[in-house]
């Protein structure tokens, strides 16, 4: 109707002050998504720095253990190479192992709570879920903005915790160590995770209602893009699991502040109860982390294969199935502290997860068959995702098997397994999605050649870094140790070298994105030939997403029925003469 909704959402306002205000006070889901994206990329960088610190310390098997002499005095045998600044806290010198613990805890806590959980839903989901549904915004725009501020507030707590001495409990905050450790600022980090949980809940609620109530006319449930299905399934888990983490962390804070004793065995409490509570959230949270990645993979594969996705409904329902099963498997984190009967049940339920997951992988692979694949960066990432995620997925069953888990529990095998799922799965899918939708939400193309180079480097470096960790684990290298037996050194050094190469890959990616923002070519409406609604609007989208409310007449992957044989999908939708007149005519 009025003209100003027809300008790009990125267009600056009259004055600089108004432009800044239009961001910090925006209720536009696209701007909020971009703000989330900036924040999570910063978190990814911080978590990456901590990861590099961990890998550098593991370059050499330096003995950093403490030795107790016969007369009772405790001395470090030798000092850590990199992690021994000799700083005193509360009058005592911080032992090198505490520094190492802090490095891997920061890596884990930041990557999990500040990066991966919000990464795809809150950033890419926020920008694209409403557009893919043909909506003008999410259901509750102000709640959406509020959730971003809650996220930033939680992030500030996390940063305070780092500055005030860090945390050395691991990101899981296991009791009784987390209630008894004398080092660092554990309470602040626990509160940070508690606050970030609210941000996650609000995003999830918003998405569920948006999907239920704001689909464009003509869009049934099975006309939704699979990314929307995946984010919807994720939102269900966010809403139903996160409150349990909230109350758990709150009880942990009470435990630290008031010594309520519920998790403290010395007072008759139960430390394992904390693990049950924690994993009742955090195992479903693993699927909060990976399900949106599945959704992105589905989009990338269909669009860059220019082909109807094989088994649409099977993929959609498998997301819901994974969400449902995710609530039933938390006990597999405590195989060593449960009864045999409980172990058998949890082991069996854990195997169930493999079924819907495999359904997805086979459907993606089937889509490749006789497809006209363009091997640009998003598609490369989709292929890398399938490769790495499959390795990550197939190393799950050995951990779900009781007999093998006794051996592999808490070793580098577990570290490698979840990095193959979380990084090889989610992060690679996230990078693919970022490249896929970058032209749409920034309005700029990126340098395809260098992006491809970087993606190949990231893929190779990722595998170098983590594949050797499977061997480390099966040979008995425990996780979370700063020091190790000398015969592990070669494998650790390969892993560290891979991590450095990974850093190079991500730096090239950063340079490619920076170059695109500064001097990238203007992006067309539909650079890849996608059929879902986001490709029908401008790049970048206008303020209310579409010039007119879209009416859905075909499914998101109907390449065989919608696009005439002689038409390149990139030219789709064919320009509507009325639309052309409206946009380019002199209607002012």
């Amino acid at each position, binding site marked *: 109707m009025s003209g100003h909704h027809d300008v790009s959402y990125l267009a600056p306002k009259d004055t600089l002050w108004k432009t800044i205000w239009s961001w910090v006070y925006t209720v536009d889901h696209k701007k909020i998504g971009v703000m989330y994206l900036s924040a999570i990329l910063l978190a990814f960088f911080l978590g990456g720095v901590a990861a590099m610190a961990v890998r550098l310390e593991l370059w050499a098997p330096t003995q950093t253990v403490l030795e107790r002499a016969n007369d009772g005095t405790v001395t470090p045998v030798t000092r850590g190479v990199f992690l021994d600044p000799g700083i005193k806290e509360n009058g005592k010198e911080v032992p090198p192992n505490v520094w190492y613990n802090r490095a891997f805890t920061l890596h884990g806590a930041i990557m999990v709570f500040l990066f991966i959980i919000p990464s795809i839903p809150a950033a890419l989901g926020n920008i694209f879920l409403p557009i893919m549904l043909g909506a003008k915004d999410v259901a509750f725009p102000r709640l959406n903005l509020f959730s971003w501020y809650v996220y930033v507030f939680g992030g500030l707590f996390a940063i305070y915790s780092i500055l005030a001495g860090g945390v050395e409990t691991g990101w899981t905050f296991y009791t009784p160590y987390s209630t008894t450790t004398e080092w660092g600022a554990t309470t602040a980090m626990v509160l940070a995770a508690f606050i970030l949980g609210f941000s996650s809940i609000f995003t999830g609620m918003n998405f569920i209602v948006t999907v239920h109530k*704001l689909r464009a006319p003509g869009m049934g449930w099975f006309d939704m893009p699979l990314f929307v299905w995946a984010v919807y399934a994720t939102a269900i888990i966010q809403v139903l699991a996160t409150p*349990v983490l909230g109350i758990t962390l709150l009880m942990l804070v009470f435990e630290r502040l008031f010594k309520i004793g519920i998790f403290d065995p010395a*007072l008759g409490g139960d430390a394992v109860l904390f693990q049950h509570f924690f994993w009742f959230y955090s195992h479903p949270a693993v699927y909060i982390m990976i399900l949106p990645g599945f959704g992105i993979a589905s989009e990338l594969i269909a669009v860059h294969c220019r082909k109807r996705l094989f088994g649409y409904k099977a993929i959609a329902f498998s997301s819901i199935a994974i969400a449902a099963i995710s609530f039933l498997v938390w006990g597999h984190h405590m195989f060593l502290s449960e009864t045999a009967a409980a172990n058998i049940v949890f082991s069996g339920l854990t195997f169930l997860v493999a079924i819907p997951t495999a359904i997805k992988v086979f459907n993606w692979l089937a889509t490749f068959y006789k497809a006209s694949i363009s091997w640009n960066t998003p598609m490369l990432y989709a292929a890398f995702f399938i490769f790495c995620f499959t390795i990550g997925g197939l190393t799950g069953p050995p951990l779900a098997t009781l007999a093998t888990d006794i051996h592999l529990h808490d070793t580098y095998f577990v570290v490698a397994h979840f990095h193959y799922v979380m990084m090889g799965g989610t992060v690679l899918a996230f990078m693919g999605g970022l490249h896929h939708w970058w032209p749409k939400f920034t309005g700029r193309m990126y340098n395809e050649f260098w992006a491809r180079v970087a993606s190949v480097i990231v893929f190779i470096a990722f595998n170098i870094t983590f594949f050797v960790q499977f061997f480390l684990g099966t040979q008995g290298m425990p996780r979370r140790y700063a020091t190790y037996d000398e015969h592990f050194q070669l494998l650790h050094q390969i892993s560290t070298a891979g991590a450095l190469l990974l850093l190079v890959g991500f730096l090239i990616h950063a340079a490619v994105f920076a170059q695109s923002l500064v001097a990238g070519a203007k992006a067309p409406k539909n650079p890849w030939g996608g059929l879902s609604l986001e490709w029908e609007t401008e790049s970048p989208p206008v303020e209310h997403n579409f010039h007119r409310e879209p009416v859905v007449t075909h499914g998101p992957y109907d390449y065989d029925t919608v696009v005439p044989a002689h038409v390149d999908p990139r030219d789709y939708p064919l320009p509507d003469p009325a639309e052309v007149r409206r946009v380019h005519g002199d209607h002012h």
Partner: protein
Amino acid sequence: MSSITTKDLTADRDLLPWEAYVPGHHWRNAEDEAEGAKLGMWLFLSTEVLLFMGFFTAYAAFRMKFPGNWYEAAHYYLDWQIGAINTCVLLLSSWTVVMAVRAAQLAKRRQILVYLAITNLCALFFLATKLILEYWPKIQKGKLPGANFAYTGEVQGAHDHIFLSVYWISTATHGFHVLVGVFLISWCMIKAAKNHYGPKHYTSLENVALYWHLVDVIWIFLFPLLYLA
């Protein structure tokens, strides 16, 4: 937004706020918006239920661990009569809050205000009873949760402090929800006074009422578990 003209409201007076209500720009109509808001509220209530599940799980775990001590402690430290009175008060408030919604549907502004005021009085009575008759005597006697529990005078067993931990954190979290409810109901009263609620639009009032029912329902579970253990 420019003024709204409605066919059936052609009186020469200014429209009341609820009559002139316009839904958010991204909604097709006010009905969709109200349904969306209600669905959002139900989702939020499910998170609340799961949040309190943490306490109920802790309750179950420790009751199984210390069954005898649990029974003795519940009967010794808690007075079921105070709990029963509070239960009745909350049930009454649940009824009045429904009647407030009904009054909004019938466009009876004064009735909305009266029913909400009674609801808030019930909430304040509940909080006052809790603080004056339950929390304060316990604080004076040192019957605090966990390590701060004073094992002096008559005690019921070795794990009284764990029972009181569960009692304190669950009732305090519930009490916090009651307090939030007082603010929400007061906010609704202000909106009602300004004529924001009527048959065409009463979404926030209905959602606050839903929240209030949840606070009530959680108490209905806490009361027998703790006081009638």
